[in-house]
């Protein structure tokens, strides 16, 4: 409707222009309707994606009896859950465990994968393509195939019920990250390395002083990806940890879910479950807020190569 004054203006200018103006009015109005539908869809879907988070945050501020009232704004908001949740379970210990494992896992996998990737990217040696083919092949291998023997290896090493198996294999690089970092190293101009070599730089120096500093974005990407993967992992902690004080956040949250879920004979204290679920998500949201670029670029890069 608001297109009419505009069109009317053109009509007033001269009769000759009128047919053209009428002709162009139709698509313009359709365009506006399309715009409205478009923005409604975009905003509606965004709200749909955010609503579970909103529900979770809201529920965490509700007293026990109101967790399921599904109000967006709590009727009787309280901070009790955030105070009590640390007492009903060793949450702080779980957070510390998860943080420690995540940092160890990410640091070791970044360093080792970068080293291996550099070996593949920079040097020429016999069987290189075959060995790199093996890296790609292991990327496709489902973890289930090696899960049991790897468990038995850690058992033989006396590492059951320790944090070591949660990050230990990261010391040896991860095929996917080796692949990504190699692609990145290959883009670095070779002249840089040749010049440094003439200046007497050692092989390790080439890696440490040229490849690593120039690849910071890629290395940060690997680091944050592994932080997320480690923080969110349930399977390994489930297999390796028995002692409640060694639990990581996902395993701990699962145990709270069992403990308080009446379906499983629990006590029905859902306010603690929602609060713990929210707290477990907060560090990842913070990391995403800070490192979003790396996540987005990294995801896009995986598809380009695939």
């Amino acid at each position, binding site marked *: 409707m608001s297109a009419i004054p505009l069109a009317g203006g053109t009509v007033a200018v001269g009769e000759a222009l009128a047919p053209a103006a009428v002709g162009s009015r139709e698509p313009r109005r359709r365009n506006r309707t399309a715009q409205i539908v*478009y923005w409604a869809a975009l905003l509606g879907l965004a709200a749909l*994606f*955010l609503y*579970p*988070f909103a*529900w979770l945050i809201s529920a965490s501020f509700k007293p026990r009896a109101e967790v*399921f009232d*599904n109000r967006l704004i709590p009727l009787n908001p309280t901070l009790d859950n955030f105070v009590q949740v640390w007492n009903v379970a060793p949450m702080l210990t779980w957070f510390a465990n998860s943080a420690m494992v995540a940092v160890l896992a990410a640091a070791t996998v970044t360093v*080792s994968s970068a*080293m*291996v990737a*550099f*070996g593949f990217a920079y040097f*020429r*040696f016999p*069987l290189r393509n*075959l060995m790199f083919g093996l890296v790609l092949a*292991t990327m*496709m*291998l*489902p973890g289930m*195939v*090696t*899960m*049991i*023997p*790897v468990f038995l*290896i850690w058992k033989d090493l006396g590492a059951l019920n320790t944090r070591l198996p949660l990050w230990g294999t990261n*010391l*040896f*690089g991860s095929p996917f990250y*080796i692949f990504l970092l190699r692609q990145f190293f290959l883009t670095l101009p070779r002249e840089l390395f040749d010049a440094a070599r003439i200046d007497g730089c050692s*092989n390790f120096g080439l*890696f440490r002083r040229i490849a690593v500093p120039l690849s910071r974005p890629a290395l940060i990407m690997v680091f944050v990806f592994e932080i997320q993967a480690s923080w969110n992992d*349930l399977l390994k902690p*489930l*297999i390796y940890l028995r002692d409640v004080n060694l639990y990581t956040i*996902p395993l701990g*949250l*699962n145990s709270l*879910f*069992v403990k308080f879920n009446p379906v*499983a*004979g629990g006590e029905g204290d*859902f306010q603690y*479950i*929602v609060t713990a*679920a929210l707290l*477990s*998500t907060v560090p*990842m*949201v913070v990391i*995403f807020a800070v490192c*979003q670029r790396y*996540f*987005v670029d990294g*995801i*896009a890069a*995986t*598809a380009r190569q695939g």
Partner: protein
Amino acid sequence: MSSAAASAAAASPAPADRSTHADAHPGDDTARGGRRQRRPPGRHQRSETRAALLFLSPWIVGFLVFTAVPMVWSLYLSFTDYGLLGEPVAVGLRNYQRMMSDPKVATALGNTFVYAALYVPCAIIVSLGLALLLHRLIRGAGFFRTVYYLPVMAPGVAVAVLFSLLLNGNYGLVNRALELVGIRGPQWLTDPAWIKPSIVLMSLWGLGGAIVIFLAALSGVPRELYEAAEMDGASAWRRFRSITLPMISGAMFFQVIVLTIAAMQLFDKIFVLFGNPGAQTSASDASLFFVLYLFQQAFQQLKMGYASALAWLLFLIIVVITAIQVKVGNKLVYYEGGSTS
């Protein structure tokens, strides 16, 4: 595998050994004769190989200890009875025979297939739809991308916990919302018919990664193509069908493969909702997914031999499915290089 083993053996104790060995048998190198002419394997080549092996050593050790040996070991275990105590007892093909007649295997496989067949198309359509919406944005695309990606960051356990509450049949948000429009919502997580759709819904919340990949693919489509098509009077649908779809078919193909493999191995949400001792027993058959069954056999029943056989079955199934997808995909995917030649 054996070649890597050879180079690893040479790499760790005495790298010098390898070069003397190679020098003593120049005939071994005839296969590389062509390369040799271009680049004589002098002292420089040897030192380069040595340096490379040093950089590769973490992966070589890791590959042997945590991939190659476990694969062989797992294959061996799949022909044994092994309960963690004592020694594995060889039983020949019995684990594989048992698999064929184990009704739980059929159930778990069936559930997993149904889930994958529901999830993958839904995920592709929804993420492509969202990516197309976002792609048209000139400003604010970053904001919406953040919104759609955020759920990916939430731990799978937290997502499962959250959705178990949202999808609660009696007082969950979803059914309350459906009530407002006069629909009586199902018992999402306990009604066998609704379990798979519930998990699809849960997984769809976390498809931000697919959206990002489609967005990247969409931004790679040359604008000239659309402009030319528009001038020729092609409709929006026609442009999508004849330009967008072929140009992003590579990314879509990649997504289908990756999402299928992931769907076949879905575990953490399933474990939280249905794997915990005592949880949702009423729906146990409809919620038994393959990896959950494998996990239960290995670490709850301690049937390591049988579980190993199950793992190999899963591997085989994934390989076959991927091979079929690649074969079909190669016919459907538009490769820029291929069409011009």
